C-alpha cells in the first residue's frame, strides 16, 4: 500500500518536472480540451482510490478507464466545438459530479476506519 503511495507521488513529481521543463507548449486554442482531459484523469484517479478502498480495484479497468476517459473527454469537447455544441460543459459537469461523489465516498471510508 505505501509503496503504491510513494510510487504515485514519485510519478506525479516526475510528471510535473517534465511538464515544467518541456519547451513546447500547446496553443491556447487546445487549452479547453486539455482541461477536460485533465478533469477526466482526476476523476479516474479518485475512482481508482475509491475502488482500492472498496477492495474492488482492477488494474486493467483503472488504466483503460484513465486513458479512454481522458481521450474521450477531449475528443467530445473537440467534436462539440466543431458542431457548435458546448459538449465540454457536459464533460465538466459529468466528471465534476463523479469527482465529488468519489471524494465523498473516500471521505466516508476514511472516517469509518
Amino acid at each position, binding site marked *: *500500500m505505501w*509503496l*503504491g503511495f510513494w*510510487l*504515485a*507521488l*514519485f*510519478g*506525479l*513529481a*516526475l*510528471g*510535473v*518536472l*517534465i*511538464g*515544467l521543463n*518541456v519547451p513546447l*507548449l*500547446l496553443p*491556447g*486554442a*487546445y*487549452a*479547453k480540451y*486539455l*482541461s477536460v*482531459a*485533465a478533469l477526466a*484523469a*482526476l476523476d*479516474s*484517479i479518485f475512482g*481508482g482510490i475509491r475502488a482500492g478502498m472498496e477492495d474492488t*480495484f482492477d*488494474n486493467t479497468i*483503472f*488504466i483503460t478507464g*484513465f486513458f479512454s476517459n*481522458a481521450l474521450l473527454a477531449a475528443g467530445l469537447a473537440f467534436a462539440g466545438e466543431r458542431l457548435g455544441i458546448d459538449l465540454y460543459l457536459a464533460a465538466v459537469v459529468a466528471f465534476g459530479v463523479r469527482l465529488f461523489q468519489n471524494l465523498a465516498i473516500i471521505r466516508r471510508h476514511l472516517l469509518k476506519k
Partner: protein
Amino acid sequence: MRWPTYISITLVALVTGLLLTFQFRVSSRIEQGVPAGRAQELATELHQLDAEISRLQSEVSDLEAKLRQATKGQQQALAAMAGELTKAKIAAGLTAVSGPGIEITLDNPPLLLKTGRPASLYVIRDEDLLRIVNELRGAGAEAVSINGQRIVATSEIRFAAPFINVNLTRIVPPYHVLAIGKTDHLQAAVSIPGGVVEYLKDLGVRVEIQPHDKLTVPAYTGTRQHTYAKPVQSR
C-alpha cells in the same frame, strides 16, 4: 498488489502530473495573452481591415492620378501665365527685344570748315524727336529707343536746355533712333515727301535712315512706381 498495478499507478500519476502542469502553464499564458474568442474577433477584424486597406489603396492611386492631372493642368496654366508675362513685358518695354527694323541717325548741322560756324543755326529739338517717334509708332513700330533709352508708355521726350531728356536721362547728339517693326513701313513713314525727315533735311539736319535685318532695342531701365494709379476692379 502486483507489479503491473504499481507500474500503472506510476504511469497514471506521471501523466496526471504532465497534464496538470501543461494546463497550468497554458492557462497562465492565456491570462497574459489573448482569449480564443477574442482572437477570432481580431482575425475577422483583421480581414475587414485588410479589405479596407486594399480599398483605400485603390482610392489613393485614384486620387494620385487626379492629382497628377491637376498638376499637369497647373503646369499648363503656369506656362500660359509665363507667356502672358513675357508678352506684357514686351508691351511694357521691360525686356530687351530684337528684330528687323530701322535706325535713324540725326545730328545737328555740321560746322563749316571755312568759318567754323554751323551750316545752319537750327538744332534738333525735342519736338523733332517726338514727331519721329510718333511717325514710327504710327507705322507700327513695336519697340522704339533713342540713344539707348527705351520709349515706354510713361517716357517723356522733353527739352531741358541745353539737352533733351528721355526717361529723365540726358541724351546728346547724334541721336540714334532704333525702331523694330516692318522695315518698309517704318522707312516709308518717316521718309514720306513732306514728312518729318524731309523737313529736317531742309533745315540742314543730317539724317540717315538705315534698315537692319536685326537690331536690338534695350529694355527700360528706369524705376516704375504706381503710387496713385490703382487698377479698377472690373465687374
